[in-house]
């Protein structure tokens, strides 16, 4: 359960503490200190830990990642423009730090506040959250994030507000010359009956090694509707560990999409508490990995109240020597009657060397519930492949086409058009016969 704490994070902390955000806030400083102590006690997880059985973070542990300073090098404007979304409120973070200059927040309505943590931190409203995550049991990454927090954002959407367009949080990593670590934090509070759409986008623009340890919290008030997109496009040698904690009150709706395409190693923990009657969560994911990429999703949905619903739909495509992990836990508490939960995980293995471990796990303590789960790992449908070939479509084209169709099933659900198109472009670019595949859709 416990690993060893790489002592250099203590040294990094001591070195950087005075310059960190919130350094002049007493409670925050104390919370950072406690988080560091907690981390030094529990360290990084090891594969002996049940939750990390198939995902070794030893490569992260072995590197002495340093805390990033403010980036000195300017960002390539063309590259930034490529990542921007048309019609979105946009917050841009470069190497962990918020850039007011690159962000576009002018048109936010008054009932919505979007505050970078560097400005928000002395606030007492965040104290409870920060302190809770500082000593989260069993997860060294949350403690490390709390101890070394780089920057982030606090988003509050007032009651009844329908925020349009989407909020795009763009976390860009650029070259910095040595292996760096980033610890972003996102707080989202959606007021009663509000609606908000948020894209949390990680884009690595560097071939260097780096480590992102991200923590996101969503609190959906009564009747609130939150759509959250996590778009993971870290660099080829990036490590991404992301945790998302969702707390839902009565009749709220949270839809989550995790599109995980980049990074050498990516781990996504998504934990949802359905804490109010009639709350509903829909969790969707698409991951594609090739070469020696490793991608892991762990979801846990806790049905605490009656009439709560959850629907999970995750699909993965694994090629080369890639490895995928999916672990979906659904808990239905005593008294959470009329719960409706379903969980689906489908995986496509394109190579005999690719590997997938999938494990749905249902724990049900109520008797009047509807729960289903299904997980599959397989190759392309031979019958479909033969059907296409029997019509004159070449084997490699048929393979590309069926692979794309498998993945697009999730992509097609993404409501934000520019994001959907960008992901479709990325998918086709990774397949042979891109032009033909594009035409056939």
């Amino acid at each position, binding site marked *: 359960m416990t690993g060893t704490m790489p002592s250099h994070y203590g040294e990094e902390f001591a070195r950087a503490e005075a310059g960190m955000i919130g350094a002049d806030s007493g409670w925050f400083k104390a919370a950072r200190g406690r988080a560091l102590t907690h981390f030094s006690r529990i360290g990084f997880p090891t594969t002996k830990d049940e939750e990390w059985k198939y995902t070794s973070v030893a490569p992260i542990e072995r590197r002495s990642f340093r805390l990033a300073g403010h980036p000195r090098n300017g960002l390539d404007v063309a590259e930034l423009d490529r990542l921007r979304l048309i019609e979105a409120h946009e917050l841009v973070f470069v190497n962990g730090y918020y850039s007011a200059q690159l962000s576009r927040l002018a048109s936010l309505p008054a009932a919505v506040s979007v505050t970078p943590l560097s400005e928000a931190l002395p606030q007492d409203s965040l104290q409870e959250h920060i302190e809770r995550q500082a000593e989260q049991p069993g997860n060294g990454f949350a403690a490390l994030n709390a101890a070394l927090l780089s920057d982030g954002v606090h988003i509050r959407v007032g009651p009844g507000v329908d925020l349009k367009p989407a909020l795009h949080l763009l976390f860009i990593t650029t070259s910095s010359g040595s292996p760096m670590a980033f610890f972003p934090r996102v707080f989202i509070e959606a007021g009663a009956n509000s609606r908000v759409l948020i894209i949390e986008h990680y884009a690595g623009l560097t071939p260097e090694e780096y480590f992102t340890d991200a923590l996101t919290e969503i609190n959906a008030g009564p009747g609130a509707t939150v759509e959250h997109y996590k778009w993971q496009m870290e660099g080829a040698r990036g490590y991404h560990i992301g945790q998302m904690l969702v707390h839902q009150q009565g009749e709220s709706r949270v839809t989550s999409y995790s599109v995980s395409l980049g990074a050498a190693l990516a781990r996504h923990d998504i934990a949802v508490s359905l804490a109010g009657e009639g709350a509903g969560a829909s969790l969707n994911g698409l991951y594609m990995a090739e070469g020696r990429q490793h991608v892991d999703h762990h979801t846990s949905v806790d049905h605490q109240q009656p009439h709560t619903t959850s629907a999970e739909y995750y699909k993965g495509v694994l090629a080369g020597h890639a490895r995928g992990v999916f672990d979906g836990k659904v808990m239905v508490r005593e008294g959470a009657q009329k719960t409706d939960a379903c969980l689906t995980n489908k995986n496509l293995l394109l190579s005999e060397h690719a590997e997938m471990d999938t494990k749905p796990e249902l724990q049900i303590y109520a008797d009047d519930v509807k729960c289903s789960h299904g997980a599959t790992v397989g190759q392309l449908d031979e019958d479909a492949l*033969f*059907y296409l*070939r029997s019509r*004159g479509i*070449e084997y490699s084209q048929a393979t590309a086409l069926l692979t794309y*169709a498998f993945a697009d099933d999730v992509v097609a659900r993404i409501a934000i058009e520019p994001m959907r198109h960008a992901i479709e472009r990325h998918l086709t670019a990774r397949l042979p016969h891109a032009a033909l595949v594009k035409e*056939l*859709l």
Partner: protein
Amino acid sequence: MLTISNLHVCADRKPILRGIDLEVGRGEVHAIMGPNGSGKSTLAHVLAGRDVYEVTQGTVVYDGADLLAMPPEDRARRGMFLAFQYPVEIPGVNNAYFLKAALNAARRYRGLTELDAVEFLSLVREKMKLVHLDEALLKRSVNEGFSGGEKKRNEVFQMAVLEPRLAILDETDSGLDIDALKIVAEGVNRLRGGDRSIILVTHYQRLLNHVLPDAVHVLSEGRIIRSGQRELALELEERGYDWLRPKALA
């Protein structure tokens, strides 16, 4: 057009076809009949290039070339078409684009210019009428959510668009009501003629009331045990298959 000589085929090491000889000339329509499990569908799939079957002996010459050496896509591009008994649903792949890609792959292979979207659409509209297919099906994924009859008509429609030189219809008549059967038969008859050869694989002779074959072959336990004219099909209808089986003679 097609010469099959001493063809032996196994599936899972179990012999299915045990020495088939068959000659189909240009423009001819041959019916292959036989009881369930006689190897009819296996023969159709082997000709189209399905690789789950292992050819252990024999040769197939198609239009002067060694058919068994070709991958399925080359067979299709050279004008072979298999209408599936169970057309496969392919979610996420658009029916119209799929067919356009198939048609243009064949046209490229034959050195013809590819059809653009407008030319393709007008061709498709004309051919859809042939089998009374609703144009809305073009916009759907390949066979996805099609009724049994729509799937079969979609096969004949694809055949009409691709204009094959040798069409193999694998039990295209099974599961159709009489009206759908007539539509399918009408579609096949319209495609008949000229150099186009057709092999009709069927269990019942009722399709042969509408599409008159030049020859009828009876397949049993992996061998052709009787060949004849159309009258053979009528006799089978009356007497069943048992009287032809070697066992029944013993």
